[in-house]
């Protein structure tokens, strides 16, 4: 390992160092404010590190493939973690209890996500996924009061652990059949191995799909999503929706491209079935939700379905890989904007997550209401928002690859989705009966900033499209 390889791993190193610093700080003097500052500095430096490492893109051992594409997502995920950190401050600060561990967990979880993004080997994939997941279990259960967070954490822990085990077993079967664990090697050899030993490959692939499908909450592995979204503290829900899912999807895309998995039609049909089911069932189940966090959980299931359409169309670098970059970025920013508002308006009060709690928000706090409206319209894919350009990409890519059945599901799914997004917007626009002046909610700068990003990305996408193409 030479110096430039170390430089390529800069973001990971900075994050590890931040974790160590946090531990040292906790052993000297436990102080929440200091821990917060160290984490913030660490995350900002990580974003810088991801930009810095771009000049040193290369494969580092067989475990990591550091490329500009992964580094872009590393910085995006670090940004998402930074947003989570800013939101968490309000949520946890008021109790004056010892919460420094939370920041440590956030840093470790992000470290896992970045490992996952850069990995090119099943071992690093699994390490990253577990590091991210284990830290996340604790983050979900972190609020001391209430049963919901603990329930959500236990549910996520048990199911996620099962999924990891299945994934691991899938890797083992694939390894037994091919003798390979790197993405590229496994993908190439799977074809030959299938001729000799079809059962091993089929079982292994099936297990890997279900393991990854669980982490991405694709139908039929989606059962955990609404409960965990609802139970987790709102900033953590936002983190789960963006970093955890985003990183796994990046890893999946890399596996798909490096392993040239697009050459296996049966795999593609399996993914197509999962995608259609996710788009339709996710959107249909969202219709009946009255809790905004559960609603967004089902909407995220559908969105991962749309992303899977792009994945199915992938055959190398090109329009489809730009589409993954754009859609994922748009989805992460939009979700963060939505959760930034929800964290403020609902706080940690479970009853405040009902849609009825949002009635008249337009007349109580214009800024938050406009931010949430833009975020919801972006999720629905209305023009001038990032979500629309994302949908534009999905449909264009689908048309180019003639995926008509999937496109039909996209259209039907989006048409259904409009209803539940509009329900929230309608609730917010209700003119209140009483004329009592309500106090505005604190902390609108962050939501405003994210909303602006969503609008800019949707209205002047040219420079970002060029950037995505250059990755």
């Amino acid at each position, binding site marked *: 390992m030479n110096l430039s390889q170390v430089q390529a791993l800069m973001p990971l190193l900075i994050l590890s160092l931040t974790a160590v610093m946090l531990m040292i700080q906790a052993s000297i003097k436990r102080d929440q404010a200091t821990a917060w500052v160290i984490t913030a500095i660490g995350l900002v430096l990580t974003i810088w590190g991801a930009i810095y490492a771009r000049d040193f893109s290369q494969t580092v051992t067989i475990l990591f493939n550091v490329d500009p594409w992964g580094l872009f997502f590393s910085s995006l995920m670090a940004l998402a973690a930074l947003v989570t950190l800013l939101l968490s401050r309000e949520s946890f600060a008021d109790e004056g209890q010892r919460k420094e561990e939370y920041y440590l967990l956030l840093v470790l979880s992000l470290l896992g996500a970045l490992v996952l993004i850069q990995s090119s080997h099943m071992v690093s994939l699994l390490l990253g996924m577990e590091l991210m997941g284990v830290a996340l279990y604790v983050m979900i259960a972190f609020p001391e009061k209430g049963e919901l967070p603990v329930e959500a954490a236990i549910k996520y822990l048990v199911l996620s652990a099962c999924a990891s085990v299945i994934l691991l077993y899938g890797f083992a079967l694939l390894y037994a059949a091919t003798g390979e664990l790197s993405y590229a090697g496994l993908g190439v050899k799977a074809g030959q191995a299938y001729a000799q030993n079809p059962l091993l490959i089929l079982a292994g692939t099936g297990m890997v799909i279900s393991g990854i499908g669980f982490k991405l909450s694709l139908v039929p592995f989606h059962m955990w999503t609404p409960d965990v979204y609802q139970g987790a503290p709102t900033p953590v829900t936002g983190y789960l929706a963006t970093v955890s899912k985003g990183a796994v999807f990046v890893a999946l895309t890399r596996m798909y491209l490096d392993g040239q998995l697009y050459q296996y039609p049966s795999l593609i049909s399996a993914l197509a079935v999962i995608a259609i089911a996710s788009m339709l069932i996710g959107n249909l189940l969202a219709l009946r939700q009255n809790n905004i966090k559960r609603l967004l959980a089902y909407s995220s299931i559908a969105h991962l379905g749309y992303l899977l359409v792009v994945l199915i169309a992938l055959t190398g670098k090109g329009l489809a890989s730009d589409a993954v970059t754009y859609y994922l970025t748009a989805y992460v920013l939009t979700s963060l904007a939505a959760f930034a508002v929800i964290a403020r308006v609902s706080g940690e009060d479970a009853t405040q997550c009902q849609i009825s709690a949002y009635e008249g928000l337009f007349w109580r706090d214009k800024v938050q209401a406009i931010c949430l409206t833009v975020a919801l319209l972006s999720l629905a894919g*209305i023009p001038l928002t990032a979500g629309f350009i994302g949908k534009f990409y999905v449909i264009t890519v689908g048309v180019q690859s003639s995926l008509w059945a999937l496109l039909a599901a996209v259209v039907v799914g989006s048409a259904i989705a409009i209803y539940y997004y509009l329900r929230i917007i309608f609730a917010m626009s209700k003119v209140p009966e009483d004329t009592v002046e309500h106090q505005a909610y604190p902390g609108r700068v962050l939501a405003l900033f994210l909303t602006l990003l969503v609008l800019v990305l949707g209205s002047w996408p040219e420079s970002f*499209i060029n950037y995505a193409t250059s990755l």
Partner: protein
Amino acid sequence: MLMINLILILLVGGLLAMLSERFGSHVPRMVALAVVLLDLVYLLLALSGLPELGGLQAPVPGDPQTWLMHYRAEWIPAFGISFEFALDGISLLMVLLTLVLGAVAVSSSWTDVTTKCGFFEANLLWTLAGVLGVFMALDLFLFFLFWEVMLIPMYFMIAIWGHEQRAYAAMKFFIFTQASGLLMLVSVLTLATIHQSNTGVWSFSYFDLLNTQMAAQTAYWLMLGFFVAFVVKLPGFPFHTWLPDAHTQAPTAGSVILAGVLLKTGAYGLIRFAVPLFPEASIDFAPIALWLGAAGVVYGAVLAFAQTDFKRLIAYSSVSHMGFVLLGVYAWNQLALQGAVMQMVAHGFSTAALFMIAGSLQERLHTRDMREMGGLWHNMPRMGAVAMFFIIASLGLPGLGNFVAEFLVLLGLFQVDPWLTMIAALGLITGAAYSLLLMQRSFQGEPDESRRLNDFGTREMLTMALMMVALIGLGLYPQPVLDMAQPVLDGLLQFSATVVGGQL
């Protein structure tokens, strides 16, 4: 730049109207009226610099240089998307109609809207801005953007200021248009992708996408995507079910804009995009479209006859009248197309006026149920006379705009399909029946002497007079409107004739 300025004035004006509420709840209305009139004056001043409309040569659909105005600036070059606007006779007519009815709508919101006036006027102006964009955008991406974005302020207008079932109506309106819009989006993107694979260049420009070579079956499917989106908006049978709810529940100004202007975007889309982009597929489809049109004429009229709700009746009559537009477009000859364009303008005025009357009645009586009306002429003679005028205009009395329109459509249609013409002509008879029923039930009959109702005031009479003059003008001397549309229609007919070698 003129075209962008027209839109920008409305956008900024909306913002100003919203902010001006702090000076009093009546200020936004004045700001809104001033903005719309400013826009109108600006357009008229700019037009005086253009060549005489009647003597224009036929603009070639594929060549922007022959249009009245053309503007293009890069937006997203990676996909060949640009800010491309162009204006020809038909779009100019529609823009003028939009701005005049915009002023009418502001006037009709004068006493109707009492809460959050600033935000209301802002939504009104933003809807108008979106509609202008739809009529002028010639980049298909940009067109779709305006098509979708104009829904949002309209949605808010129904959802916040609507009547008792506003949530249901607003939702239905949005979902119908959005879902059909998605089909159009898929069609637009497929068309652009085919163009890209044919030529290697991305473009969403109308002028580039005309004459795109593709398999006949593909063209048919893509045409259907456009057709469904436009016919939902028109609305044509059997996609009309959102309209009675949206119209009935919307506040008066919302109904005026919906019926007067928003429905015309569907008709405009058919003439501008659905047929010229896919002329061959349109020939194959024309018989079906014509039957849908005739079905809409008769079905809308029959349903209108059965209504007891004043606004709902007018809403169903719109379904019937817009059926004529569908017939006119797919008959695709000079007479029928002239009739369709005429109908778009005349129906805009007559229905807008009827919705204003319905709004005034609701404001005074707090009901739209005709069973609780009767003898209102006695209480409000001025309103009765005005209502009489617009009701006979709507049923197609010779001498008024609507008659010219429907007569031209039927005349043109007769050359294509005489039997269908007979069925469509039934719409005129049933139209007379439900229109007169509307008059009888609400304004005639036994008056209720105990009612103390305010008759139309100066502002209302002025607005109504404007629309009366327009309808009489259209009926007695329709030539200026026909002259504006004529060159464009010539160009379109020549274009389709060169592509498919004949009539649709």
